[in-house]
């Protein structure tokens, strides 16, 4: 992957995001700047409605800024067409959701395999990657289980396996522990921490939980459309 000189993987430049709701315009992000170096485990905090998910969506290519630019691994993604963006996501982004977003009718291994269906990999190669990813999250023994037979923590670990199976440039997690009890949440955080430390994954995690933010290498606070290193009063 191409990273610029100072090792910056994600660069957000003067990004502004408005939403239109009826005649009303909601200003969520105002000329926001942000840089994430490769290998960082960044925690993003801030009050509800402050735009954390919106920012994460811009970085993950799920949405485009109203103005400003988003550069990931040297590529301007804010200019890509919807179709190109979808292909870009498949190659570069792993996503972890608050509510896991597993397909209920597919087994754990088939869920994990989904992103690989968007690659050139053969069936045998896909299986190898799926097994490796499930091994990393410690769920090799639950491969053939359906999501509803797994606990919340286990489902989220399957979700993380799906997020890393295609070895993406960037792992984005929106409140990955938001729906879990403390113990399962800690397991998930340990896992993310290990992915960052041992596998050198760059992770951006949105969280409400200061305890979760402690595992990160850096924490940023979003408030009233701006980022700061200190929580707002």
């Amino acid at each position: 992957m191409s990273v610029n000189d100072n090792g910056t993987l994600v660069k957000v430049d003067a990004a502004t995001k408005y939403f239109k709701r009826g005649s009303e315009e909601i200003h969520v992000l105002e000329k926001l700047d942000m840089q994430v170096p490769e290998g960082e485990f960044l925690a993003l905090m801030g009050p509800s409605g402050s735009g954390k998910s919106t920012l994460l969506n811009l970085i993950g290519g799920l949405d485009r800024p109203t103005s400003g630019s988003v550069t990931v691994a040297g590529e301007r993604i804010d200019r890509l067409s919807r179709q190109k963006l979808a292909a870009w996501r498949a190659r570069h982004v792993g996503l972890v959701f608050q509510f896991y977003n597993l397909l209920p009718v597919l087994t754990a291994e088939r869920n994990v395999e989904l992103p690989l269906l968007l690659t050139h990999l053969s069936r045998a190669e896909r299986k190898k990657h799926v097994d490796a990813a499930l091994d990393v999250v410690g769920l090799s023994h639950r491969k053939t289980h359906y999501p509803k037979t797994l606990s919340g923590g286990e489902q989220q670990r399957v979700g993380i396996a799906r997020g890393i199976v295609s070895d993406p440039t960037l792992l984005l997690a929106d409140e990955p522990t938001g729906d879990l009890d403390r113990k399962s949440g800690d397991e998930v955080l340990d896992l993310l921490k290990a992915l960052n430390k041992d596998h050198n994954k760059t992770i951006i995690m949105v969280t409400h939980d200061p305890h979760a933010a402690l595992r990160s290498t850096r924490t940023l606070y979003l408030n009233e459309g701006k980022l700061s290193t200190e929580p707002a009063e």
Partner: protein
Amino acid sequence: MFNWFSQIFALIQFNLRTIWQRKGSSAAALFGIAGVVAVLVGVLSIAQGFSAVMNASGKPDTALILRSGADTEMMSGLSRETTRIIADTEGIARSTEGALASAELFVIINLPKRSTGTDANVPLRGVEPMAFSVRSDVNIIQGRPFEWGRNEVIVGSGAVREFEGLELGGRIPVGKEEWTVVGIFEANGGISESEIWTDASVLQPAFRRGNSFQAVYVKIETPESFQDFKDRLTTDPRLNVKVIRQDDYYADQSTAITGLITGLGTLIAGLMGIGAVFGALNTMYSAVSSRTREIATLRALGFGNGPIVISVMVEALVLALIGGAIGAGLAYVAFDGFRAATMNWQSFSQVAFAFDVTPGLLVRGIFYAAIIGLVGGLFPAIRAARMPVAAALREG
């Protein structure tokens, strides 16, 4: 796109499994489509059965001769003299007993229908001895042939089924007398099976026809010699007749009614089909919206629009095909072989026939269901593909 088929396969599998989770709405769409297909196949099987009778009625080597200007036997009239000249014309097949020609009389009598008890028209045909050689497919299955010169009749099996009092030994009112049913015949499913036959020379005085007839049925030497035979008759200065191949004659009679039935059936099925499209639309819209989050997740992971559209369409198609198969099966069980009679408008008499649900009709019905499914699935599929990913993820 890479691994396109794996993508589509995974999505289809996902979609099809969720059909079961929406049993109610899926079943509604399914039975809507089944109903349409059953009606379509049912109605078309009527036309099919009717034209099968008509097609079985005519042979290319059999011709009938009417007075020129007459389109049907009902409207025709031929003198004894004329029928003799016709029977002596060269080109008619012969047996040891002579030319295979039968001068015939065609009248209508009223008998009560079994189904309703009300009177309807039944054709009563007076024939000459050669009639059985001209129409070699007529054969007595019960009783015996009528005796020449006596007030006896034989009855086609279709007429027996449709009308009261035509069983063996039954008596039918003809003028002031009652004639006895002495035999029942089949005619290979042809229209004769809807008729009653007797001796023409007995029928003439009963209906005060003097010595006249309405048509001459002949077997020509070969189907190919028809044109020569026809030219010979139509150019004979003593005659003023028209010559029609028997199969053309019945095909003509059936096109009007089969056209009407087919048109009506298609119209009804078309209207119902529009209803079914809306049912399918509704089902597929709710299927898509109940899956907003899953579809958004797949799109977020980078799945393209193509596989998502196709998978939704396939789901609609599968629903429609199941519905279509149920409908076609229902139509087959309910209608195939179902006996009925309808008015033959050319002779204003009843033709007995059986609904005929052919494999071709079943395929047509299922094909129609598939179209309903595809139309019903298209717009929901496009909606699924158009959903903005970020907003859809929030909704879920």
